[in-house]
């Protein structure tokens, strides 16, 4: 759900969206592998974890209806192999918000932890939006 505590105009560097939890069970992994047309290797594909983080991000950003947000770039670091069945918590925060002419660039920090609070993945996404 969009973060209703803040409007897009009010979003600023340092803002943290409410974290979201996902259970990466066999059914989720199987669905993901079918979607990416891959056979899998017995663990959660790292990009399946990123998909959860990005979904958290897209659901959290309070955009006006009809706004088209473009994923411009992505940085990722995979820190730990994640077994199937793991529950993860995705944390998304605004790192930077830049206005460039008619466009606005939102740079978001991504951190994903497992139940033991160990970081399994981190990254940075750049989203381009109409200003």
């Amino acid at each position: 759900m969009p973060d209703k505590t803040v409007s897009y105009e009010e979003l600023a560097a340092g803002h943290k969206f409410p974290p979201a939890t996902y259970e990466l069970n066999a059914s989720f992994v199987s669905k993901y592998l079918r979607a990416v047309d891959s056979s899998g290797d017995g663990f959660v594909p790292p990009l399946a974890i990123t998909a959860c983080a990005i979904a958290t991000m897209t659901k959290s950003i309070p955009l006006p209806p009809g706004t088209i947000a473009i994923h411009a770039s992505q940085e990722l670091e995979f820190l730990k192999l994640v077994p199937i069945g793991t529950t993860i918590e995705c944390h998304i925060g605004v790192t930077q918000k830049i206005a460039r002419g008619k466009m606005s660039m939102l740079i978001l920090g991504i951190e994903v932890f497992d139940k033991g609070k160990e970081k399994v993945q981190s990254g940075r996404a750049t989203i381009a939006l109409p200003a």
Partner: protein
Amino acid sequence: MLTEIQQGKALNSVVKHITQEKINLYAEASGDFNPIHVDESFAAQTPFGGTIAHGMLNLAYISEMMTSAFGRSWVSGGKLRAKFKESVRPGDTLTITGKIDCIEQESDVSYANCSFECRNQRGETIVAGEAIVKLSSGKE
């Protein structure tokens, strides 16, 4: 997995054909139902003129190539930086290629620095970037 890890070595390429069904499956798996990906009548009114694939679907194919080349070293020690340059439409065929640009040694750990690219059937670059894989440590 690669049997020989050396500078200049090409990674096994990955080829994928994109359909609206695959985009819908990805939306269901990821929970990202942005209408630009799944609502054909909405997407037709946008500058894209139709639905486009999720950028993360394209990135998943790049990760598949890296996992195939480096196995668990990629999954628990990989880093990537990617720029999404063009959108992908249903009907496109993507070819993902990569190579090892150099091997670097830091203390007793070696790293493979790779570059990758995803192109469509017209030769346009869709995604381009770099990846680093931690290969081994004398302490492991």
